[in-house]
Structure formats: structure tokens, C-alpha cells
């Protein structure tokens, strides 16, 4: 009987597996193959050059600053976004003043805040990037105008034009665009935590700080971990590419200060006609992504709390 069952299931899986192989696995294999060639991307003729592309990577300063910036984004973006998301979600759902009957509740007007936080989520990435670009315009942008208005005439940074702060400016826009999603995600997670836990804790005299770290965060851990991986991939992926491509000076930033790996892949393929080298960069991006996921899974491993 057992064998029949296998055949039965395999029968259903043939089609999806074939589709998966063609559209997911085969491009991976192809990319790895192309990374060993001198393919230009502009003509079908190419030859295998072995590890030349990879050897070149090691001496490419721009590649290394792209790796540096991508890793910075990877480390900071999830921390900042998720912390803010958690904080806001906690305030909206648990952090409010205690009212009659309800054991826990959000701060006053939390419904409105929820909408406000989620609002950036309905804007597409290019629009958010453009909005921020206008705000950062050193000549007529909102930020410098604000500084002028409050009398800080001398504080007129070049924002995206300054290699010291350009990456932070891009990162701020990315946080702004993404935090709303996590507020909603964590709110949903928090609402499924039984109220009696909070009630018990409050009876024991726990303050907000304690309820957050002793109850909310541990019970939300699975969600946080998922969000972490998702945010990390986003920091390495097309989202970073789109923000940098649209906002940055250059693009690639003044003195390569906002160059990120996906953007460099794009430039090498579509500007310099070096698709083979670009796929080698792409493969290194794949490695960074895999290492990141493995590390997060490992660090995040915890006993699952059931309730």
C-alpha cells in the first residue's frame, strides 16, 4: 500500500517539479555556467575562461565596496526596520494606558496610526524613491528648506551627494517604505497571543518593558525570524537595487558610497557589455544570500513555544 501511495503523490508532483526545474533550477545552473565564460550579453558567441572572472572579482575595488555596502544594508536594515516595526506594533496593541474592561490596548488613536504606518506600503518603490529624492534635493528639497526655516542656515548637507551620508539617506527611505508592513505583520501576531498571559503578568506587577521582553517578543519569535530573513533578502535584492538606482548620485553614489551588488550586476551587464563577469558577481551575491539565511536560521533556532 505504501508504494502505491508514493506513486500517487509523485504523479501529482511531476508537473510542478518539472516547472520548478525549468524555471528555477535551470537558470541557476545556467548562471553558474555563464560565470565561467566571457559572454558579453550582446552576441551569442562566447568561450569558457575558467576562473578568470572570479580572479578578477578579488582585485575589483568597486566590487568590494559593493559587497561592503550590501553587507551594511544586510546587517542594519533588518535590525532597524524590525525594531521599529515591533515597537510601533507593541504601542498600537499592548502599550496603551489601561482602560476599563480591556486588559490590554493600544495608545489613543491607534487605528489611525495603523493606517498611517501602512500607507507607504501602497506606494510603489520608484515613487517612494522619487519622493525621497525630491526631499533630499539640496537646492530646493524639503529637508534643507526645513533647516533653513528653523534658522539653521549653515546646516545644508548635500544628502545623496555626500559619500559620508548617502548610504544612510537611501537606507532611511527603505526603512520608511517597509516598516508599515511589519507593523501590520506583528500586530497580527500579537493579537493571537492570549490575553490572559498579559493579565497574569500585569497582576504580578509587570511593567510595559517586562511584558514586551517576557511575553510579546518570545511568543512572536517565529514571526520576527521570518521577517528577518525576508528583510535581509530585500536588503540584498531588487529593492535595494531600485532605491539606489533611482535615488543615488551616479548611480552608485559619490565615490561608490551607495554601490550595491545587484546594481553592479546590472551595470556590468547593461552598460559595460560584460554579462559573464556580471553573472560571476551574481553568483557571489547568491553566496552572500545563502550564508545570511544559514546564519539567521542557526541563530534564530529556539524552542518553539506552544500556546
Amino acid at each position, binding site marked *: 500500500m505504501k508504494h502505491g501511495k508514493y506513486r500517487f*503523490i509523485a504523479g501529482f508532483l511531476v508537473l510542478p517539479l518539472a516547472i520548478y526545474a525549468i524555471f528555477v533550477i535551470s537558470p541557476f545552473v545556467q548562471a553558474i555556467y555563464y560565470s565561467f565564460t566571457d559572454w558579453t550579453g550582446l552576441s551569442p558567441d562566447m568561450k569558457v575562461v575558467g576562473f578568470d572572472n572570479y580572479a578578477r572579482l578579488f582585485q575589483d575595488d568597486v566590487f568590494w565596496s559593493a559587497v561592503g555596502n550590501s553587507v551594511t544594508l544586510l546587517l542594519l536594515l533588518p535590525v532597524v526596520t524590525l525594531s521599529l516595526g515591533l515597537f510601533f506594533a507593541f504601542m498600537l496593541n499592548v502599550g496603551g494606558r489601561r482602560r476599563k474592561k480591556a486588559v490590554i490596548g493600544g495608545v489613543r488613536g491607534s487605528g489611525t496610526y495603523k493606517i498611517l504606518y501602512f500607507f507607504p506600503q501602497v506606494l510603489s518603490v520608484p515613487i517612494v524613491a522619487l519622493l525621497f529624492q525630491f526631499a533630499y534635493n539640496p537646492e*530646493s528639497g524639503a529637508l534643507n528648506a526645513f533647516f533653513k526655516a528653523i534658522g539653521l542656515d549653515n546646516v545644508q548637507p548635500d544628502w545623496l*551627494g555626500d559619500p559620508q551620508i548617502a548610504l544612510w539617506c537611501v537606507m532611511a527611505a527603505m526603512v520608511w517604505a517597509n516598516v508599515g508592513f511589519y507593523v501590520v505583520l506583528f500586530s497580527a501576531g500579537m493579537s493571537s497571543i492570549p490575553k490572559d498571559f498579559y493579565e497574569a503578568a500585569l497582576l504580578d506587577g509587570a511593567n510595559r518593558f517586562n511584558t514586551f521582553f517576557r511575553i510579546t517578543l518570545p511568543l512572536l519569535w517565529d514571526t520576527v525570524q521570518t521577517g528577518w530573513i525576508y528583510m535581509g533578502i530585500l536588503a540584498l535584492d531588487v529593492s535595494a537595487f531600485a532605491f539606489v538606482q533611482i535615488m543615488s548620485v*551616479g548611480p552608485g553614489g559619490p*565615490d561608490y558610497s551607495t554601490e550595491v551588488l545587484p546594481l553592479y550586476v546590472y551595470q556590468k551587464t547593461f552598460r559595460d557589455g560584460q554579462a559573464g563577469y556580471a553573472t560571476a558577481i551574481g553568483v557571489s551575491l547568491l553566496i552572500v544570500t545563502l550564508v545570511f539565511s544559514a546564519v539567521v536560521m542557526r541563530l534564530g533556532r529556539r524552542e518553539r513555544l506552544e500556546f
Partner: protein
Amino acid sequence: MGSTSAFNRRDLVKRAAALGIVAVPAMGMLSACAGGGSDSDNKVEKGKKSAKNPLAVNESAGLDVVIFDGGFGDKYAKDAQSEYLKAFPKAEGKVKLTSTQKIQSTLQPRFNGGNPPDLVDNSGAEQMDFGTLVGKDQLTDLTALLDAPSVDDPNKKVRDTLRPGVVEMGQFGGKETWILYYAYTVYGVWYSQGNLRKLDAEYPETWDDMLALCAKAKKKGVAGWTYPGKYPYYLPFSLYPFIAKIGGAEVLRKIDNLEPNAWKDPAVKAAFDAYYELYKKGYVLKGSPGLDHLQSQKAWAEGKALFIPNGSWVENESAQQIAKNPDFDLAVGAPSSLSDSDKMPYGTIWASGGEPFIVPRKARNAEGGMELLRLMLSKKSSQNFIKQVSSLTSLNGGTEGLKLPPGLASAQVALQKAGQNIVNPRMQDWYVALQKERIGVAALGEMMAGRLTPDEAIKKIQKYADDTRDDSSVKKYKR
């Protein structure tokens, strides 16, 4: 959460993965096809050669044209297309004209697949790399077109109706001409005569006058210069001819040829110092390092700064803002003289072809593509282009009887004044990454933002140039 099923989910995933691995080698074979286009000859048959059809175009064959829809739009190409249909009525309905800003992402798959269009305006931010196209033998030699009789005068070859230097620009060291530049761009220092008149000033022909004028403007709260800090590779539009003027055209030739220490020439240092002084003395519009080309042009057109390094497309691109000031009177100036010992006279300017047109090697109807180019180089189409987008074309002259807009008229005067002293640096079409990103963003942009001294910038650029010379993946050219 125990599983009640005898069949473990984890097991299933493992088995599925194993199946996937088996499938992988088979997919590897697929990948061999993905890059390889068929080499079968799919060209249309040639037509009959005649006086009216010197390139022997197949009269009923389709034509596939892709135009870059940038600063010049695509209307001029559509007009040329109707000229083509007038000449070959049988092609009615088979001529396809696509306009896009995404040249490379649209066309790369078609080049790879071996079915490219018949004529391409390879321009804009997504320009395909010419070195690669030529190196990989993807383009048709346009010599046949150049040797064909021109539309206006059957006794003259197309070659002889073009502006000097245009044919050479389309060559890459050999005899073949791969590219035909349709527009003709004058680069330099663009300014408003009206705004200068307000300061009782003329365009400064010497650098001392330039500094004096900037000082005067600063007192009135107007900046001397601005530039697109987001794309600092606009700076060379006035900086390179300035270098040539100081040290002779030879300096630029050495730079283009990536000769060792080409950037260490004293002329480069003198020019960099001069521009750096603009920054030091506060003559550059504040915030310029963070502006893009449209933002800086806007600030300049609103009179917040007097001068901007740019090309003749600025008249079309900033038309709306310029029109707000009826007294604007757009003009282009050649680089000011730095000292009496400058090697080239005042008036030395950078002018060269723009809007590069190519006919892919594997085009089905290459003759048709060339024929459309030939029609575009007629006086009629050329004047149409000039009127529509206020830019010159590569057709020499052809402006008779046209009332030119002020910027273009001034460009025409500048060209006449320059005479033989027209320089044409090739960095921007030979080594795009080096010119735009390394020299532009990482060095010139940093210097003009005050984060590098001229000496540091030169050192950095020289290293970038050396790196490019040693990079075997970049094809090199000499002139």
C-alpha cells in the same frame, strides 16, 4: 505537533530535491541553447538597384526600426519613416518603428537571439557598448551607405555631405564605418545673454574675467556656475576643450589613447586648478553636488547660476523653463583663455556627432535600414530635425533659410569661430565606465564637491586610466 501520517513531510521534500538534482544535468543542455541564436541566413532578398534605389532595397520588404526616445523624442524618425514609405509604397504596413528609453534591455535578447532590428538609434543611459558590438562583429559596415549618392545631389556621395569628423567617429581603428552619428552636438559653457546683460557683462574670454564676473555675481546673490553633481560627467563638456586649449589637442589624444601619465600633463592640472578655484571661492551654486541634470538646468534657467557645462540638447530639454524668461537669449561659450601661453586660440570648442545609428549585422533588411538613414540625411529631413529639436544634424550646412532658435544660432556661430579648432575627445564613446563613473563620479564630482584636491583627483584618475588599460576585458582604441 506530531505527524499522524506515516508519510513524513520532511522525507517528501528530500525526495523532491533528489529528483530536482537528477533533472539538473538535463537542464544544463538547455542552457546551451539559451545563449546560442541560430545562424541561419534569414535576410530578405535584395531589390533592384536604380538611380532612385542606389542601395538596392527590396521594395516590399518590412523594416524594423528602434529609436531612442530621449531628449530629441521620436517624431523626426516617424517623419523620416513616411519619407521611406513615399519612396517604397509597397512596404506600406510593413514598417515598424518602436521608440524606447530602454535600448539595451529591449534589444539585448534580440541580439543574442540573432534577430535584431534593421536600424537602431543606440543612445541614452542604456546605450549598448559599442566596443563590444564591434568586437563581437554585430554591426553592418556602413561604407555602402557612405558611398551611395546623396538624396539632394546625385553627383555627391553621402560621405561628402557630412560634417568633418563624423565618418571618423563611426570607425574603430579600421576602414569600416560602424556607426553613423545623426545629430551634431556642440558642447561648452551655456549661459543666458540676458542674465549677463543684467550684470553689465559679456561672456568672459579670459579666466581672470570669468573670476571677476563670478565675484560680481556673487555679490548679487547669484552663483557663477552650476553642474549636475549627480552626473558630474557633464563637467568634461567644458573641461576637456579647456584642457586642449591650454595644452593643445595632443593632450586629449594621449588621454584617449590611455597613454601612461597622460593625466599628469601640466595642462590638466592647470584646468583642474581653475575649476577647483570656482568651488573654493564659492562661485558654484550651493548644493550642486546633489542635483541631477534636470534640477541643475532648472536652477540655471531660473537665473540662480550663470554658467553650466552642457551640450546643445539643453535648448530642447530646458525649453519650458527658458521660455519663462523672454529675455533669456541662450548662448554657448567656448572655454575662456587661462593665460596668453595657451596652445590653442580662444574659440576652441568640443563638437561631435550625437545619436549614434547602427545597422546590426544580422538585420533582415540591412539595405532598408541604410536607406532610411540616407533619407534622414537629406536636406528636407535634416531641416525637419533642426526645426523640431533645435539641434544640428551631421549633414553639413542644411540650415539655409531656417530661422534658428537662439542657442542653436549661437552654436552655429561658435562652430564658425572655432574653424579648425574643434576637438573631439573619445573617452565617452570608447570607455563609458571609465568616463562616466570613474572620472566623472568618483573623481571630478568629488573634486568639485571639495572632497578631493586637484592633485588627488589627477592621481585617482590616472590610476583609473591605468586600470582600464590593463583590463583585458575592455577593448582598446587608438586615434
